[in-house]
């Protein structure tokens, strides 16, 4: 739950002349597997019995559980979304998915058109989902806000995507940086806006490492293949076995690289974010998370899914343990934003469209 909507109070540093006291607050996660198992299992059962309708309530209860069990500086987070809003979002999403499935079978032209429309709407949908999540996340009675308009997401989430594609991913770090900047600076807690300061070079470090490993991997696999290919070319079974091993190794390393980039970039996002005088520290380690994800996957498969609650609790605990709010001064001085700001004329429309959409970021 700490993925995007961060929480911290910010003292107004102009008002207090003496150097503020710096206090580090680590979130405390108090959820337990035993307790969450009941919630998770009932969610699953009721979702099945109600043909998925309950899944909206299930999502709210799950989010509330993780939010409320995360304490920062003495106060829990709150997830405020109404299940009905989430249900509306899901019904829309299912309608789109049904249209896609049906048209892919019966009307390929319509299918292509729908895919195009969904693709073109994606940045707007990302904004909607950020907005929904922010305004439904609260801490100490104040909610977060995400108030960038949908149009401004097309730069970081579409234009930069194209540029990255055109440059064979060479601009990928810049794209990530732009996206992070957009996400972080679009958020407010109360009236206080988050700010973001990062060095593009820092974004190139993980990318360079990943690209280097990838090139080495490709060369090694290529050379190995060239070596054994002639010797076993006549033996089809041996050839297939070797080729499969190599493809397997390739995918494992690729998965590791994707994971590496995600963790390092998530750390960069947090470590470059500020809320007033306060800042954040994210110290998640790639090898720890790789181990957690891999062992979670094994446990989930071996228990036919029953280990899912344990896996989720474990991950949340790790995340909380490797996160820090470094507060400079008082946490009590955040103030709610006045909601009657001019320029919010479109907010009714936004409210009408304010439905929970699940978009993984």
């Amino acid at each position: 739950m700490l993925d995007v909507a961060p929480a911290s109070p910010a003292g107004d540093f102009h008002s207090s002349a003496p150097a503020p006291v710096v206090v580090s607050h680590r979130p405390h996660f108090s959820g337990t597997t035993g307790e969450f198992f009941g919630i998770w299992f009932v969610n699953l059962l009721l979702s099945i019995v109600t043909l998925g309708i309950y899944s909206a309530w299930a999502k709210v209860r799950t989010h509330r559980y993780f939010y409320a069990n995360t304490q920062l500086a003495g106060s829990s987070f709150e997830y405020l979304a109404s299940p009905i809003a989430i249900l509306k979002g899901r019904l829309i999403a299912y309608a789109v998915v049904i249209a896609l499935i049906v048209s892919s079978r019966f009307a390929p032209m319509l299918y292509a058109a729908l895919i195009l429309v969904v693709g073109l709407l994606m940045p707007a949908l990302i904004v909607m989902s950020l907005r929904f999540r922010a305004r439904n996340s609260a801490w100490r009675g104040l909610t977060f806000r995400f108030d960038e308009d949908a149009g401004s997401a097309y730069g970081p989430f579409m234009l930069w995507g194209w540029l990255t594609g055109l440059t064979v991913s060479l601009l990928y770090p810049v794209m990530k940086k732009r996206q992070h900047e957009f996400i972080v600076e679009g958020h407010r807690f109360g009236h206080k806006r988050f700010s973001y300061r990062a060095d593009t070079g820092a974004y190139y470090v993980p990318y360079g490492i990943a690209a280097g490993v990838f090139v080495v991997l490709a060369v090694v696999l290529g050379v190995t293949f060239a070596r054994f290919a002639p010797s076993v070319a006549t033996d089809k079974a041996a050839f297939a076995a070797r080729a499969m091993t190599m493809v397997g190794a390739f995918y494992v390393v690729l998965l590791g690289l994707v994971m590496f980039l995600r963790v390092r970039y998530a750390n960069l996002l947090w470590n470059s974010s500020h809320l007033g005088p306060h800042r954040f520290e994210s110290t998640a380690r790639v090898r720890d998370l790789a181990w957690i994800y891999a062992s979670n996957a094994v446990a989930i498969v071996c228990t036919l899914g029953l280990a899912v609650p344990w896996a989720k609790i474990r991950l949340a605990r790790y995340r909380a343990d490797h996160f820090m709010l470094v507060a400079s001064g008082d946490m009590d001085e955040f103030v709610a934003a006045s909601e009657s700001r001019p320029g919010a004329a479109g907010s009714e429309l936004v409210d009408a469209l304010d439905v929970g959409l699940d978009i993984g970021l």
Partner: protein
Amino acid sequence: MIELPGRWFDGRSSRAHDVRVELLPGVLGVDGIDGMRHEWPIDGVGITPRLGNTPRVLSLPGGGRIEMADSPLLAQWAGRPVSPIERGADWLERRRGAIAVAALATVLSTVVFLHAGVPWLAEKAAAHIPPVVERTASAQVVSLLTRTGVGATTLAPARQLAIAAEFRRLVAGEPRARDMRLRLVHAPGIGANAFALPDGRIYLTDELVALAGSDDELMAVLAHEAGHHVHRHAMRQALESSSVFLLAGVLLGDVSGSSLAVSLPAVLLSNGFSRGHEREADRYAFALLKRRGISPRAFADIMRRLMKREPGSAGAGPIGYLSTHPPTPERIQAAESAAGPGTAGGPRRPDDLQ
């Protein structure tokens, strides 16, 4: 005196005030807000539903909130009621025995729903699909067929006319018979086969015509394909497999259906539906053949020939759906028992019925 500790937030700033909350009949009293006591009518105060051991939050008129630990004293909540759905969920979440019973009931009802509910819904829905959808879907199959080398028939014109006339007699007066159009094709890539498209076109390959020992055998195959059209199997199959995909996605939380966990059970289930359709088309064919004075044994005969020619395959059916058919021996046996004891054993006598 019922007093609970809590932290009050005014909703305008992040400052926390330690307070004591008092639940009185009809009134919520809060001590400690700026050293004062405040009271609110209890029916204006909301509370977050109970969830595990998480804190409860009271929402006060005017935007204030009080965060407090859950307490048994809050069980007799007299303020704004919490959603009965969440109250019920919380009740269940705390009872392992009830969860186990509910799990069993869920598995059973899922099986029943997939077995009976989905096919029933698909049948009802298929009847309302506009013909234009059937035509569009068929056009796609036709373009695929053309690419796989399906061409004009090489049968003599007289033979073509004879088969067509016999087919018209076979389906005359049947439901949806008006849409049924026989297409004879030369299809070396497909081999001996027949299949029905959603819009009523029924394809019969020259290879199957050559394989058949008699016209009755051809009519038996065509009756089966006509059965697919009468019962709208193409559309029902599409609806069933889509809904299974969607359902599995909903239940497993992956609506795009891209993961193996979703697609594997979905494919297995949709093949199960398909086998049900084949049996239904067989039954229809047997009844139709009997009404036309042809013994269903003709169906058994052509199935035997197909099995002998391609021992690995299951028999006639739409391309790519071969594994979706019931085992051929079972179908042969069904045909023979439909033919009745009068023809058991010995060679087929087409004229011994009616």
